[in-house]
């Protein structure tokens, strides 16, 4: 078999002759393909890169074991007769056992099948005597890694091979070997295949020296030992020398397959670094399968730092000019676009928008330069392809790693901009999980009509607005856009002129909906964006003056309430979800962009900032905060006292110490919450920090309270900080001090500043949460990889059944009702809304 597919027999370990030309019969024989430019392959006549290579072979002087098959070999030897080669199971039981084995294999895989066969044979009590020819059986053990011992005598691979040959095809099938197509004796190597040179190219160093591939080195060793073995056998050398060489050959062939066998020292380079042989090439993340076969590299892509630009549409991406002049889009020349495409060639690669290459119909690529420009123009005719620069409106796939869900790769429209960063609308940060603290993102330009169409139809931002995870909008207004709309719809009103200016800036030109009066309210301005027949009932996060939380939109007018995160934000953004459902994805994306810009424009006009003064509390409030904390601390002290005096009553089912901890925690948390309430009550209501908290755009009241009043108890694993040596948390406290301050209660606020001890406790919890994140990421990453691998080929078939790749039915109807989550509202069909809409 090996001989048949081979094109060269390898006889010498030498590589090149004196002239540096590959030796015939050497490892770099040009019959196995070529890796040097200029040479032609002797087998197929093709040149470098055209010839994919051909196998060679070595005739081994003595057969050796293949380590990867040794477990199977032992199983077979142990469970078949040494004389007649039949399996050690009586004929009458074979069919029954075959059924059992098939069952085992189906349930647990082929490895289990082999284990089971061993078990069966040992249970048969026939292990000592063959039921077919009554021959006595020896006891076979494996001396790792490749030596087999039978009754303290070694069995040579020749002997093993002879025994394997005797195994009948039917018996082999019992072992899970597909005989006669695969024969057990093939697991002993007599002829070794030599992979083509193209698989192990040598590198020419700068000094002109050649450096061979690891595999070539290894095969060189094998050939050398093999030759020596041949010579020794022919010369009639003593058995011991032959045996030694044989073992050496076995070692080399073993490490050639796998250089990481448990009992063997790995074969090394002269530098001491282990060789990378066949197994190492295939396995693990950096191996052939996961690195090169399941993972691909791509051209026509760009990567740089990202920055925000709210003036872009949500489905646009700002591409720097220098990038746009490197990335190209191929356009096929035909009669009608010839003049159009010629213009690009005229401009050449230096001027924008120009073209970088033309491709002739025969596939030859020609670079356009200022010299070849004229010739290219001449040459151009239908059938050619022009690779022109990236222009506004081209499709591009935008991506940020880690690509955890499908919204991590969306299709955007190119907008060529000056500058050196890729720009995106901040509203699409959520699906990408991006921020602008130095994040980089990738841009890919699809190169065929088919891929462009698929990108546009399946991947464009508007098609991804609703998350398939929970069926709600994942893209929404964030941060300033929420604050702005909140202010606009709750407090502001503008002179009509100003309002028009505002709306113009947002991109609205039809002001028919704006009431004709001197001053228009923010609600009215906001309503201009809404479609005429839009009705919506929702709730806001906070109540208005009248104490109601309702948000009411009737016939496209915001009648009551105001906009905040509940209506506009991602995930919760219920109003957005409704608009999307009723008016479609393109409209929803458009209106979202407008709302976003409206919010920002409002803030442009009024100014918005967080000030230190926002955290100021009036004197009496400060006093009350102090009092609350003092009281709490006093209470804690009382608890400790009663604990030490033993007068404390324990909670049912808990020890006294546990009870104390619980009560202390309770008191301190209550105190912190009280300070929070005080802050909420006394801090300036319309400070920008408060507005951010109220609208839900950023931060919450707790954050404010932590700044203004009290940071609160620091907890490690749900308890107060108690880890420490010598029974104390820090050396400035007495031993066994249970007081609040000694166990990580931070009574200061961030503004007043923390004491050194408090700072340290805070740092402790900070470190703990950092550790948590660092430990979690790889764990969840592995879980994700496993899930994805297990489920990747489960799809909905025609006829709505859910099946895997082998057409096995997993579900009769997807999710029991066939509803696509990304087309539902939070996984459901909103019956109530439908009923309400029908009057």
């Amino acid at each position: 078999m090996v001989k048949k597919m081979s094109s060269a027999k390898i006889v010498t370990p030498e590589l090149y002759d004196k002239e540096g030309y590959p030796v015939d019969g050497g490892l770099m024989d040009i019959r196995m393909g070529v890796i040097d430019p200029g040479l032609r392959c002797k087998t197929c006549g093709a040149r470098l890169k055209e010839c994919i290579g051909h196998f060679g072979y070595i005739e081994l002087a003595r057969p050796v074991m293949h380590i990867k098959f040794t477990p199977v070999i032992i199983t077979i030897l142990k469970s078949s007769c040494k004389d007649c080669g039949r399996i050690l199971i009586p004929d009458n039981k074979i069919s029954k056992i075959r059924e059992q084995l098939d069952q085992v294999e189906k349930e647990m895989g082929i490895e289990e099948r082999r284990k089971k066969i061993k078990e069966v044979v040992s249970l048969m009590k026939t292990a000592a005597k063959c039921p077919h020819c009554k021959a006595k059986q020896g006891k076979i053990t494996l001396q790792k890694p490749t030596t087999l011992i039978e009754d303290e005598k070694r069995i040579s691979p020749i002997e093993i091979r002879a025994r394997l040959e005797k195994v009948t095809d039917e018996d082999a099938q019992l072992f899970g070997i597909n005989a006669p197509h695969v024969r057990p004796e093939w697991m002993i190597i007599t002829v070794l295949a030599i992979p083509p040179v193209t698989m192990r190219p040598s590198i020419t160093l700068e000094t002109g020296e050649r450096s061979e591939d690891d595999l070539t080195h290894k095969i060189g060793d094998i050939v050398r030992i093999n030759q020596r073995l041949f010579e020794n056998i022919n010369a009639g050398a003593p058995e011991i020398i032959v045996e030694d060489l044989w073992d050496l050959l076995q070692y080399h062939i073993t490490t050639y397959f796998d250089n990481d066998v448990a009992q063997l020292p790995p074969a090394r380079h002269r530098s001491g670094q282990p060789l990378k042989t066949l197994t190492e090439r295939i396995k693990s993340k950096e191996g052939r399968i996961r690195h090169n076969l399941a993972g691909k590299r791509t051209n026509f892509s760009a990567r740089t730092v990202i920055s925000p630009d709210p003036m872009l549409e949500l489905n646009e991406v700002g591409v720097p000019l220098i990038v746009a002049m490197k990335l190209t889009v191929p356009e096929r020349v035909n009669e009608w676009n010839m003049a159009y495409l010629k213009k690009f060639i005229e401009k050449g690669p230096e001027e924008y928008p120009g073209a970088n290459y033309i491709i002739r119909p025969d596939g030859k690529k020609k670079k356009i330069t200022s010299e070849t420009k004229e010739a290219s123009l001449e040459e151009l005719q239908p059938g050619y392809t022009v690779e022109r620069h990236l222009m506004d409106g081209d499709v591009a796939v935008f991506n940020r790693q880690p690509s955890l869900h499908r919204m991590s790769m969306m299709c955007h429209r190119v907008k060529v901009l000056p500058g050196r960063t890729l720009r995106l609308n901040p509203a699409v940060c959520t699906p990408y999980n991006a921020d602008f603290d130095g994040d980089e993102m990738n841009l890919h330009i699809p190169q065929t009509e088919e891929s462009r169409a698929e990108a546009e139809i399946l991947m464009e931002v508007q098609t991804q607005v609703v998350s398939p995870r929970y069926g709600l909008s994942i893209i929404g207004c964030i941060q300033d856009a929420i604050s702005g709309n909140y202010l606009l719809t709750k407090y502001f009103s503008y002179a009509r002129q100003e309002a028009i200016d505002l709306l113009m800036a947002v991109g609205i030109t039809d002001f028919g909906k704006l009431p004709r009066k001197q001053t228009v309210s923010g609600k009215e301005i906001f309503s201009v964006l809404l479609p005429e027949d839009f009705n919506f009932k929702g709730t806001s996060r906070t109540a208005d003056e009248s104490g109601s939380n309702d948000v009411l939109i009737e016939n496209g007018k915001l009648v009551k309430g105001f906009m905040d995160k509940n209506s506009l934000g991602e995930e919760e953004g219920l109003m957005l979800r409704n608009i999307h459902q009723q008016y479609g994805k393109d409209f929803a994306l458009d209106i979202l962009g407008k709302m976003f810009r409206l919010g920002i424009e409002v803030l442009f006009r009024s100014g918005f900032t967080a000030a230190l003064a926002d955290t100021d509390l009036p004197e009496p409030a400060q006093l009350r905060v102090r009092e609350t904390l003092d009281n709490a601390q006093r209470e804690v002290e009382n608890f400790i006292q009663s604990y030490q005096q033993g007068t404390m009553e324990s909670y049912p089912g808990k020890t006294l110490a546990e009870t104390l901890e619980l009560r202390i925690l309770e008191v301190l948390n209550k105190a912190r919450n009280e300070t929070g309430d005080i802050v909420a009550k006394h801090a300036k209501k319309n400070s920008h920090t408060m507005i951010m908290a109220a609208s839900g755009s950023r931060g919450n009241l707790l954050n404010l309270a932590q700044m203004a009043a009290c940071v609160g108890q620091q907890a490690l694993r749900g308890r107060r900080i108690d880890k420490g040596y010598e029974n104390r948390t820090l050396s400035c406290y007495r031993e066994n001090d249970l007081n609040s301050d000694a166990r990580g209660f931070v009574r200061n606020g961030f503004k007043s500043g923390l004491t050194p001890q408090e700072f340290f406790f805070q740092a402790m919890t900070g470190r703990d949460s950092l550790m948590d994140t660092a430990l979690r990421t790889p764990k969840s990453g592995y879980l994700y990889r496993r899930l994805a691998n297990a489920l990747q080929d489960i799809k909905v078939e025609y006829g709505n059944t859910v099946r895997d790749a082998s057409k096995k039915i997993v579900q009769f109807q997807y999710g029991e009702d066939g509803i696509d989550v990304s087309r539902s509202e939070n996984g459901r069909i909103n019956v109530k809304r439908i009923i309400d809409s029908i009057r």
Partner: protein
Amino acid sequence: METIAKEYADKLPKKLIDEINEHLPKGASQAKIRKVFEAVQKEYESAKISPGECVGLIAAESIGEPGTQMTLNTFHFAGVAEMNVTVGLPRIIEILDGRKELKNSMMEIYLKKPYSEGKNLKELALQIKETTLSHIATEFTINIADLTIEVGLDKQKMKDLGITPAMVIASITKQVKGFNVKEKDGGISVKTKSKDESLNEAYKAKERLKDIHVKGILGIRQVLPLKRGDEYLIITAGSNLGDVLQLEQVDAHRTTTSDIYEIQNVLGIEAARQAIINEVAKVIDSQGLNVDIRHIMLVADGMTVSGEMRGITRYGVVSEKSSVLARASFETPIKHLINAALTGEVDRLTSVVENVMINQPVPIGTGLPGLVSKQKK
């Protein structure tokens, strides 16, 4: 109403029809009801999943992506030291691995009527809790002279638990063979029947005696009666669903355990599937995340289609794949390739990775439909 509902019975899922029923205003006209049904059906049709949708991957994304946001901590249940609850990411991993040994297994035992109102709650809890000899013993001593093991018993504890020395003796004789057990001034003495006994043997026997199960249900390490809403129930550390369900005071319909493997053994594979869904959904909810139930269902179905629970590991679901290359691309590629060589496996290139490997469109989504055309002669 009913007639229209019947008409739509095979066009809409039952859940939706029920929902329409619930939300329809009383006394709505026939015409309106019909209109509602029409509108709902239209929306349902448009919300239906398209063939070719790679729902598996979407499910994996939907569970994998929020995984990065979950906590790693296990927390102590209401301060009882032995009762830990695995929550967050580790729990999800535990469920999806299909582990047989859980880190912290747990049961929620609901009770039938008079007991759920608090009747005999304490006694019941103690009846469920596993009591071993070491729980009620004050001391274990070995009398070196005649090699007997003497066990002192805690009278008070035994009285609380309702155990008599006779019961202890009975359970010892039942669980270990070859010993003479006698009651001896407040304690019991155990002597082996075999003649040649060494001190070493006696010591081993002593250790074995400690774990003698005297009362309660095997495996229930700790119990905690609890009031939830206006109902009492018992939370336990350790789990033994089969035996707990045998108790007559227990409401077998609602009692659950966190040990899904046990559910499979006691209640069958469908119950296990539902348990996976419930448990995963519980964790995700408790983390304040929103993942649609359909994704969890698909994962649970994927784990249980074979009729036996399989973890999402290289030994479980992945090893069931029909394609060698798909298996090899996950973990232990060499093993799969070697076995494929022996068995002469054929890869039909029906799943995703193989097609990625050979640079060919994958048979999913837009890659699914093929074009059939008549050839002109």
